[in-house]
């Protein structure tokens, strides 16, 4: 049973991620008053990309993108998806936090070897934005962990199953709001799409990615969409009994984020970091202080 879970959960995550990508292009098109591509367009793109003979800048260029996608797949094994959570007892929340780091590190390393100016600028923007949203994210995660007095995410989900959702449980409301405010930054979606800005830095770290590299990068982007939203659903919306209700909750959150994405223009790096360090941080700090007061 355990082995089946290990195979099923990444595949399920991949399917949901690719579906989200296709859905996002369709909904964005409809918002732009256009007909838009079919939902399966990302699958067509990936098939076409795998058939192209790309250019590689060297050994690290290949290994980096492989490491980054492997990092995303490994992270999915730690995230509970409904009742499936293969590697729940080998490290818990802290491992998730650190394995979330592997994907951008992999892309940064492989892009770095390409010595392309756009890539270097993209990498530095990626790391600055990551520092930007990590401050409130860490505060939120620590609040939850101290609130439920555990560091394993399966435990958090189980407690929420018994009691109410974390979002509705009063003291954690502030942390929930803070997380929603930084969700577009975690997913790298429009108001914070500074890293892969096609117009400014010709899609940043992906500027030098050809056929198969770009295919792996799109799959990684799909998985990171899945991871960002799955983390939110697990921590604040109480996970789910079975994968299907989990998927429904994720769909709702995704469409909410998509509307924000469609409506807002792209921020500059300083504006983004200033925003991230002002409102979400204050709210999550207040949430943590409340939790500490209640615990005393």
């Amino acid at each position, binding site marked *: 049973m355990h082995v089946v879970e290990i195979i099923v959960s990444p595949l399920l995550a991949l399917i949901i991620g690719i579906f989200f990508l296709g859905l996002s292009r369709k909904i964005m098109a409809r918002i732009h008053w256009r007909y838009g591509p079919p939902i399966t367009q990302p699958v067509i793109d990936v098939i076409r990309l795998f058939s192209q003979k790309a*250019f*590689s800048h060297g050994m690290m260029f290949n290994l980096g993108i*492989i490491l980054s996608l492997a990092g995303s797949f490994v992270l999915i094994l730690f995230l509970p998806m409904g009742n499936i959570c293969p590697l729940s007892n080998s490290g818990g929340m802290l491992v998730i936090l650190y*394995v979330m780091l592997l994907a951008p590190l992999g892309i940064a390393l492989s892009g770095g070897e390409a*010595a392309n100016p756009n890539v270097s600028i993209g990498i*530095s923007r990626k790391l600055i934005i990551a*520092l930007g949203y990590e401050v409130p994210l860490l505060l939120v995660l620590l609040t939850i962990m101290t609130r439920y007095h555990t560091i394993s995410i399966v435990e958090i989900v189980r407690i929420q199953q018994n009691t109410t959702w974390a979002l509705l449980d009063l003291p954690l409301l502030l942390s929930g709001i803070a997380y929603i405010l930084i969700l577009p930054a975690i997913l790298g979606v429009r108001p914070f799409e500074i890293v892969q800005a096609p117009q400014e830095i*010709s899609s940043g770290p992906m*500027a030098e990615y*050809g056929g198969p590299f770009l295919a792996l990068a799109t799959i990684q982007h799909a998985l990171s969409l899945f991871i960002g939203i799955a983390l939110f659903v697990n921590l604040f919306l109480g996970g789910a009994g079975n994968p299907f209700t989990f998927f429904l909750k994720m769909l709702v959150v995704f469409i909410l984020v998509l509307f924000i994405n469609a409506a807002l223009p792209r921020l500059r790096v300083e504006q983004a970091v200033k925003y991230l360090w002002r409102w979400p941080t204050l709210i999550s700090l207040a949430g943590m202080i409340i939790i500490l007061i209640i615990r005393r």
Partner: protein
Amino acid sequence: MSLDLLLIVAFSGALLTYVFGKISSKMRNAFGVVVSLALVVMVALLYGQTEEKIFYFGFLNLPLILRTNMLAWFFAISVSALGLLCIVFSLSYMKGRERGDFYYLMMLLINGAMLGIVFSGDLVSFFIFWEVMSWSTFLLISYNRGKALFAGMKYIIMSILGSVAMLIGMLSLYATYDTLNIVTLSTLISSASSGYLLFLSIIFCIAFAIKNAVMPLHTWLPEAYAEAPSPFTAVLSGMLTRMGMYGFLLIMYVMVGAARVLNLGPGLFKFNYILAWLGAVTIVIPTFIAMLQNDAKMLLAWHGIGQGGYMVLGIAFGTSLGVAGGIFHTLNHAIYIVLLFLSVAAVQYRTHGERDLNSLGGLIKKMPIAFIGGLLGISGLIGVPLTNGFASKWLIYKTLILEGSPFLAFAALIGTWGTILSVFKFLHNMFLGQLPEKYQDVKKSPFSMQLPIIILSFAILLFGILPGIPLKVINAIGVSFGFESLNVTFWGIASDTGALNTINIFAAVLVGCLVVALLFKIGPKATPIAQDDNYAAGAPVPKDKYHYTVDFYNPLYRMITPYLKDFIDAFYMKLAGWTQSLSNGVRRIYTGYVGHYVMYIVLFLASLIFIQLKWSPW
């Protein structure tokens, strides 16, 4: 394998290398390596023994004691192993340099002194070896003359302050218990009043805080690391600064004992609580300062301070997990900071001493081994899973969160993300990005430099995937301090409140990489192209016209530089200025005419008589 033989070999070996150096440098190098190898073997054979050797010299009728226990062995093995690797590394690094014999003498002397500190059973020999270590470090830091002299001066003044503080503590101990043997002291001390214990802890911890560069006393470290010759900086940052950690452990958990030290001091301002907060501050601020540095060694130096904060935080938190995490982090930090400094030295060796990150770049194709060393070093420093940094940080975080102090955990986690940014800038500016014109013909580093880098990289991965190996020893240390033992499995900690299982993570990452590599193989094989054949809107990427890794995090600099001025260093400089002007004033009294001296004496006597007449105090 008796201890005194070990120390005799260490110190006589140092002197003999100096003598051999006069004959021929080849023999000196070979002898140096043989001595340090012998030390490693001898220390390894001491595993698990608790032996004690007492020597009576006529000195103050105090016995000099050498003893080994698990804690001593743990520090000794890392000191000698890393010392050996740095000696091997500096074989080719120091080839062209002058005063090579002096360099090797000092390196082996420091190696021996550190072993002496670790094995000394009483405070007098501890203090003697401590002074030998401080002085030889001062001589080696100012090896490069020029700015290094100032850095060495700054280092030696602060370490003298530390030694004086330690001396005061020892004198007060000798006055009350007239023995300086650590074991008997620890039994006698437990009966002392908590006020006296607090005084003792503070005095000794000032000495060790200076050596371990805890926040307010850290200002000597950046210049000392930057100016010292690189292989020595590796030793300095790897083990020498962590003698402060050994000192902390010795005082807090061996002498004063765990039970008493954890509730010293009134109410909220407990001694270890303040120390934990100092550790947390030491993590955050130096890491963000490191982000602004443009010199590779300064950047790593500031990280040395930052990581020191993790160790102090771990130890000061006083739970069995925290202490185990702190000690484990000392070992891990030693491994990857030595690796990073050695890879910087390898790059320096090839690019004629170039350290400025803004003018380096693109060396990945020219020096792949140095790149791999750098990559694994920074992933250890960040704490990427499967590297040793992660295992020790996980322990520290777990205890911080479960003990319910999220703000400390938040400081530690933000330190990690600050590390990621600044450390990736280090790797990107040195090895990735555009290769400047003048480094087109850089060759690979020689094998004697690559060997230590490969061994250390392997050690990072080994301790990352199987943290059980060192944790078993650390657990034994924790038990000897009186903490309950953690059930250490071969690959992490098995406990009901969240276990660490690095084999699962390793297997998952391995399978993930294989699957993705197969996925990658579906597409046709990519055609390799030159490093600089890039897309730049149809135009050629301008060569050397501009270097886009200059000012790598420019938007962030503008935001955080105003908050990160180094007030403490400025304060110390002002202090030094006042003392200088004060001493200038005093110097004028000694004018050299005998007449003046006689006048002073007469005046002094007159004032005494006057006081006696007026108030007759005697």
